[in-house]
């Protein structure tokens, strides 16, 4: 049941427990309980909203930064990752395979704000060897959802 609940919530965290229980064919209390358990175990880490900020008046820039670092004996990449993810400007940090070590996603109001963060905070960190900053120009699809398309049902309304 857990995986099914998660698969549904991942696509629609707004769904209420009654509907979720109906979709699973399980009692409401059992589903509510399972969700509570998963929140406690931090399997469910939060409920977010997918927003197309481009359609608002809010100024917002997102940057993807490729970071090369020196891993530390005993801690590997975890200690340096922690020093980076604790900054509130940092939205996501992933350890990567391949040509660099960490992907750091940063949200800021202006290009300058993000660039200064990289120059003043990220790049000077002792273990950081190099950074390469890429700004996001347009988000087409995020979290499996195409952002700028309204889905219309073009089927004929009644068919055999």
């Amino acid at each position, binding site marked *: 049941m857990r995986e*099914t609940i998660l*698969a*549904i919530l991942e696509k*629609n965290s707004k*769904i209420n427990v009654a*509907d979720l*229980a*109906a*979709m*699973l*064919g399980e009692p409401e209390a059992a589903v509510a309980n399972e969700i509570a358990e998963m929140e406690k175990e931090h399997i469910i880490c939060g409920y977010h909203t997918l927003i197309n900020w481009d359609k608002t008046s809010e100024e917002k820039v997102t940057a993807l930064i490729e970071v090369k670092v020196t891993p530390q004996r005993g801690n590997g990449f975890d200690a340096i990752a922690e020093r980076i993810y604790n900054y509130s400007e940092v939205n996501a940090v992933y350890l990567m395979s391949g040509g660099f070590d960490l992907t750091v996603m940063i949200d800021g109001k202006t290009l300058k704000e993000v660039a200064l963060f990289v120059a003043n905070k990220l790049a000077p960190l002792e273990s950081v060897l190099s950074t390469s900053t890429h700004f996001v120009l347009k988000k087409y699809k995020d979290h499996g959802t195409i952002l700028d398309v309204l889905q219309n*049902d073009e*089927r*004929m*309304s*009644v*068919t*055999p």
Partner: protein
Amino acid sequence: MRNPLSDKVVGIQPSGIRKFFDIVSEMKDAISLGVGEPDFDTPWKIREEGIYTLEKGRTYYTSNSGLKDLRVEICSFLKRRYGLIYDADEETFVTVGGSEAIDLAFRAMLNPGDEVIIPQPSYVSYLPCAVLADGVPVIINLKEENEFRLTGEELLSAITPKTKILVLPFPNNPTGAVMTKENLQEIADICIDKDIFVVSDEIYSELTYGGKHCSIASIPGMKERTIVINGFSKSHAMTGWRLGYACGPNNIIKQMVKIHQFAIMCAPTNSQYAAVEGLRNCDADVENMRTEYDRRRKFMLTKLRGMGLKCFEPFGAFYIFPNIAKFGLTSEEFAMRFLEEHKVAVVPGTAFGDSGEGFLRMSYASSLNNLKTAMERLEIFIKSLN
């Protein structure tokens, strides 16, 4: 002027669903649970292949029986999914949707006066197609108490010396009923004993829940007397591509291809290339759609039963078939009032045969939001009837 028309054609009743469509299409803001096709777009891989094929200029006829690659993929699909073994050249051909295959099967097999047993409620085209092919339809009214399965007893009581074909429409539109292997064995024994052929319409075979589809042609002794009809419309959400296929004994397939050759020439080339991709690389897409339908199916079942409606659990297709007889309205009255008073379109069971009286077909090939709103409105409506 002489009467320009054929008496046979004029005598055929137009589909009962048509009238309903006309009314619903006037209502712009109605929620429709009346749609008999997937609400998913065709998986992108398939659409992309269609585009690519056009770019390459593959815009010519294919052979009458369809692209060899497609026939080979169809046979390998039928083998891996249902254990059916068919020869891609001798026993398989590609049609314009499953519906063409239904028409061709009747035309290739029936002589005037031959009887065709049609279990109902079922898809609207079996009966008129049988009549157009000079067959005589014999209806079996399937029963809710049997979960709309066909029983051996029902079949035996409909058989006469003139019976030639049994239509086996499972997983069923409109009821969502499926036949288990045991059910099919019982039917197969009778067909073999009475020397009856089966036209098995398995267009919803990929949409079964809680158990894999079983084809009657996989039962020993049945392959030689069964035409299996299937297609891409439901499994791969490809209704508009118009692509289906038929498999069966060579002597019947050969005659079906003959009619197809003169009447149609070949199925759309573009669709055929796209479908090859669908069978090669889209099992996961099919699985995802099935998973989504299954969730909505359970949602609908829970909601309908929760508001006190009698409703058997459907294990196939994307329809649910609640019993509304207790409200004292006919299916058509119920559906019409529900539409007029609450702007939700459902199809009266009677559109699929007289035995659909007292039932509604609700399609859950619609977004969860739509289903939810429709169920809220249904609950309000049935409270107003009590």
